[in-house]
């Protein structure tokens, strides 16, 4: 037998040993707390056989996997790299074995033949897959040997595997014989582990949106606690580096002095970014110098560690530090090369990521407010349109009689599964003829024509309303419109709320529509602007994550307020149970 296979057997033995060992410990624990078995002698035999089994398996495992090779204990692991045909063949083989075992323990002859038949079918399948595997000479199986070292991370890893395994067992043992505290603990642990897995990307999003560029990549793994570089306000004596605040066209701007013309100072604006590069003339008296935020560094000068802020940087990249500490040298300057300095940082959030992300947006979008406006228009119009359009059609289909109703309704049902792809191009041409390209109309007008799925859903709800209500209204002389609006609509409010939320999500997330129809920033909704932003600033995860967070927040906020409709909507839809 090749060494890889032996190792795999050893891994199996080791893990079984651990399993039986743990089972025994659990057993002992139960015996200690309360007597489960009525027959103590049987318990003793059980314990003894279990111990022997554990020991034998452990010995096999240790011999075959040599877990102590480099002086450190390693829990052996194995993985097979093989093509899917081999995986399927292996799975079939495993199933054949279980079926054969089951057939020996079956209670009736009928069951036994059933199991044997199943085993035979699986055997054929296994043969087919093996044949397929062998037909390609390049196929091969590689056995990867490895082990989890006994370290904190290793322990966490093994624990995670254990929780997952036991969690899966709890799942299959759903509400049957597994009971008691143990089950609760394990379920909770499994759920906690799951929450971590599902929650971590979220936390990553939030944390990254507050990180400095320095923390984006780190050889020590992911940085979870953002830190910011300390700065001190500094008024530079260098004329070219002074920052000035002035008023330009009624707005407060910041800029650099780039020259003088006719007794006035020429200022080059760098903030706000939207009008950067604009130069203008201003009286010196109207200028107000604002401090530069100079970064604080520590540096080793001789044998001394000094702390100072960067007052200037030279052409060769070296930094001029104005010393802050120690006191003996305070106020003096030293010139050091960048690799001798280290930025002074403390735990904190870099909120500038958010303001910078917004300031990079095109100026006509007013820091992204226009995106929000467009998205809101889309959301509101879609929600209103879908609710009005779908409910009135659904009402007619459920409560009114007219010739051709059945035929029309089956057509409607047929369009439910229709892929949007098929109407994509002609719809573009239709909207082009209407001159609606680069407007929001193509993205919300269709909502007013109702959607097949929502009509179908609402029809179910209308059908459940007792006929008497409507009859009473009719007798009172209500028109159809009035009956629909004042009697029927209030009855299906919860369903409408659910549809409203689905439509909201759909409109908020719609990406392909804006991608096709919208060109100018003034008409873009958030989802599309985010995709463009990713294209522009893919190298700056801080800004990217900040902008992403901004697009996610409104949805999460809505979710917080209307969680009931989100989650229970499924039940209302009738798709959940019955």
């Amino acid at each position, binding site marked *: 037998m090749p060494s890889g296979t032996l190792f795999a057997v050893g891994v199996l033995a080791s893990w079984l040993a651990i399993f039986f060992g743990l089972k025994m410990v659990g057993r002992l624990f139960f015996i200690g707390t309360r007597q489960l078995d009525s027959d103590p002698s049987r318990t003793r035999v059980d314990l003894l056989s279990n111990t022997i089994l554990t020991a034998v398996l452990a010995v096999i495992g240790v011999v075959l996997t040599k877990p102590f090779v480099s002086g450190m204990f390693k829990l052996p692991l194995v993985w097979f790299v093989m093509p899917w045909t081999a995986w399927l063949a292996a799975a079939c083989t495993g199933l054949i074995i279980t079926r054969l075992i089951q057939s020996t323990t079956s209670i009736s002859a009928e069951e036994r033949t059933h199991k044997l038949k199943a085993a035979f079918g699986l055997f054929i399948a296994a043969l087919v897959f093996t044949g397929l595997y062998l037909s390609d000479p390049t196929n091969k199986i590689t056995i990867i040997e490895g082990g989890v070292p006994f370290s904190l991370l290793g322990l966490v890893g093994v624990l995670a595997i254990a929780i997952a395994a036991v969690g899966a067992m709890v799942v299959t043992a759903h509400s049957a014989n597994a009971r008691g505290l143990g089950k*609760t603990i394990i379920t909770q642990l499994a759920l906690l582990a799951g929450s971590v897995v599902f929650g971590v990307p979220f936390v990553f999003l939030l944390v990254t949106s507050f990180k400095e560029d320095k923390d984006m990549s780190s050889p020590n793994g992911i940085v979870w606690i953002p830190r910011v570089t300390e700065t001190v306000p500094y008024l530079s004596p260098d004329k070219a580096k002074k920052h000035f605040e002035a008023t330009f066209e009624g707005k407060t701007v910041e800029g*650099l002095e780039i020259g003088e013309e006719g007794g006035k100072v020429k200022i080059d604006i760098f903030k706000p970014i939207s009008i950067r590069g604009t130069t203008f003339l201003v009286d010196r008296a109207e200028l107000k110098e604002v401090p530069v935020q100079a970064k604080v560094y520590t540096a080793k000068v001789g044998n001394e560690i000094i702390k100072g802020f960067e007052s200037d940087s030279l052409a060769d990249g070296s930094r001029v530090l104005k010393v802050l500490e120690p006191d003996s040298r305070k106020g003096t300057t030293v010139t050091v090369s960048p690799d001798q300095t280290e930025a002074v940082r403390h735990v904190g959030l870099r909120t500038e990521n958010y303001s910078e992300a917004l300031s990079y947006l095109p100026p006509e979008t007013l820091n992204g407010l226009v995106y929000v406006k467009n998205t809101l228009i889309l959301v509101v119009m879609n929600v209103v349109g879908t609710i009005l359009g779908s409910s009135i*059609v659904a009402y007619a289909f459920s409560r*009114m*009689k007219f010739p051709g109703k059945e035929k029309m309704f089956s057509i409607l049902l047929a369009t439910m599964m229709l892929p949007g792809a098929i109407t994509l191009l002609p719809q*573009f041409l239709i909207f082009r003829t209407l001159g609606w390209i680069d407007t929001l109309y193509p993205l919300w007008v269709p909502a007013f024509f109702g959607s097949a799925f929502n009509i179908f859903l609402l029809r179910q709800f209308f059908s459940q309303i007792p006929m008497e209500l409507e009859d009473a209204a009719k007798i009172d002389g209500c028109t159809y419109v009035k009956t*629909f609006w004042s009697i029927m609509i209030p009855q299906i409010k919860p369903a*409408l709320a659910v549809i409203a939320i689905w439509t909201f999500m759909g409109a908020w997330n719609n990406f392909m529509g804006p991608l096709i129809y919208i060109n100018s920033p003034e008409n873009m909704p958030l989802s599309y602007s985010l995709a463009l932003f990713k*294209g522009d600033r893919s190298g700056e995860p801080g800004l990217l994550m900040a902008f992403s967070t901004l697009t996610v927040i409104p949805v999460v906020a809505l979710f917080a307020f209307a969680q009931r409709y989100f989650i229970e909507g499924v039940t209302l839809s009738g798709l959940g149970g019955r």
Partner: protein
Amino acid sequence: MVLSSMMSRFLSVVGCLLGLLVSVSAQPARREVVFWGLSMGPDSKGQDAVLREFERRNPDLKIKLLSMGAGRMDPQKLMTSIVGNVAPDVISQDRFTISDWASRGAFLSLNDYIAKDKGKDPLCPTPDQYYPATWAEAQYEGQTYAIPTGADNRVLYWNRKIFKESESELVRNGCDPTRPPRTWSELLKYSKAITKLDKNGRLIRAGFMPNFGNSWLYMFAFMNNAAFLSKDGKKCTMDTPEAREALDFMVEGYKIVGGYENSEKFKSGFQGKENDPFILGQVAMKIDGEWILNDLARYSPSLDFQCAPPPVPDDRYNKIGRFKEEKDQFITWVGGSSLAIPKGARNPDDAWRFIKFMTSKEGRMIEYSAQAAWEKLRDRTFMPRQMAHKEGNEEASERFAPKFGNYGQALAMHTEMANYSRIRPATFVGQLIWQEHVRAMEAACFGKESSQKALASAQANVQRDLDAFHNKSQYPVIDLRLPGLVGVLGLAGFIGFFVWQFKRERIGKLERQEAKWAYLFISPWVIGFMLLTIGPMMASLFFTFTQWDVLNEARWVGLKNYQDMFGSDWKMVSKALGNAAYLAGVGVPLGLMTGLLVALLLNAAARGIRGYRTIFYLPAIVPGIASAVLWSWVLNPEPVKGLINAYWNVTLTPWMGIQPPGWIQSAEWCKPALILMGLWGAGSGMVLWLAGLKGVPTSLYEAASLDGADAKQTFWSITFPHLTPLVFFNTVMGFIGSLQEFDRVYVMRPSLDGPVGPDDSMMTPVYMLFNNGFGLFKMGYASALAWLVFVIVVMITFMQFKLKDRWVHEEVK
């Protein structure tokens, strides 16, 4: 109440915003010149300055900028805007695609403008002012369609320090460590001597990665005298011995650095400018344009590098064999942008004024001096970029070239090589040749196909479009008003028939009244169905028999689109379908299982169910684009950055010796990455399962436990059968969904053109449809693809409904 209050709140917010906007936009009216395709940043001072200067000189005009994704124009956006009559006025466009746009009549010819202003306006561009290659690239059939701006060529950058460090290895391999390689075989030898791999085969230091920087297959093919197009422009000649040799050279080059995927992974780990591996001294040689000088000067001013002509085939260098008569020993290729006016621009005259100023020597000098002043202010070195304007380029080099380090030498090398540069064929299939050449290059470098096969299939794809264009006269022009009229008449006839039927119906007055109201009520759906569903469907079916790009007349081609789909393009179609099948076949069951597992756990837990449910559900409500953006970082292949690989690198790598996968950078892991990302959003399914589980009557469980059924039996005989309708619904929807996968792929694909994902491993049917329809505006072919998707969806749905009876448990009502 909830709704109405919510709505009123929304409306009030919208109202406030509208008010705000109106108050802001009340500015004096200036005509706007809408300009697309420039990337503007805090450091693009030169561009800012020249734009402001233009506005100052032309007080009646205002420039409105829009950069579409990294300053690069997205062809799909431009095409939709031209077709939709909302085109920008000026567009900065890669020069080699100009012919493509011009052939479709999408750009305005500038000949009249030039003729009118020539000799009168000193700003007017004339051919003699430009490097001939750059001017020629912007011509199509004798007309000028764009004015060149930049002229970037590529040279070899080599790190002298690394050469010194690897002196012994270099000498041992018979290389001279004091000079860069001059020929291909030398280049490979040098690379072999310098490249270092760790014991897991990962790159530590690369000698030379053929396509790192900017060389592409084009560069090496040009050197080997391969032309991708015949002289008359009617035959695509990608699959020639010369091109094959060039591609084989690249494959060979990649083998030395541990394979293409390995080097792509290595490359993707260095995002951001200061992290360029050449700057960091982890790549010894690369072929790149002069734009990298800026970053070099900024992030590693003391790097000991030099520039040399890019190495050429040995025979060319020695001027023997095929190259005996060759004039140029070394050659390079030149690219760059140009300014053009799209068809349908609202202010073409103003646009021309703008282009004149922007491309003139005066304009360029304003731009360069402003940028230089800005860099000086910040103590940075200004590197003048090469420009297509000859006189301007010479003046800029004289005035602005840095006087220290090797930068002067580098710039001089670029200027020198400009005289020996080649351009990509100026043809209307330029964009397609580019895409296909990237595809072929990847396929060969990945080792998926031999270079001959890869090039042959690329050639076939290009040839198809060439033939379609050149042979189009054999297909009759069809007036689209005719089928439109038929459609309208058919509709009118149908409605008439319906009304006639209704009139004949023997029903009472009251019922007639009710029916009339009902028809009114369902009219929104009926109208929508006619105009937005069945009408478009029929139109789409009709388009499948035509060749139409919307801008020009449509032609009736019969079944040609279907022949292409199942013939020459079948490789790509089947790939897209295969990818969708993978996503559906693996992703859908996994998603269902994850949802079910979580739901079962939640169902078993009594405490904290609401909290857990919220956490598990939250990812499902994250907008798709935001989640794609997030996951492109979570899945970053580099262990120092990507969330998953960071932990993989400290667990599975030391435990099992398995290297972290390349995720979306790797052809193999791309789809698992998408599936993994999909699993994160499995919460929506979980809620469905939970509702389903709650619907299982508890009496059944009680009965089962009384009968002594074990957990497994209970699950398979009670729980699962009750959930089968859900399984059914979710499987159908999941399959249909994966066929139409688009948003995530669009946002996450690593490169913007060429293959969708490495080796097209992220290509999906709807993406393909979108690209053909809105990128290339092949309405006919895209419609055929749409119908293919439609037929498959119908088949899947039908099959699932057939199978449904066999395993879906439905209670007898």
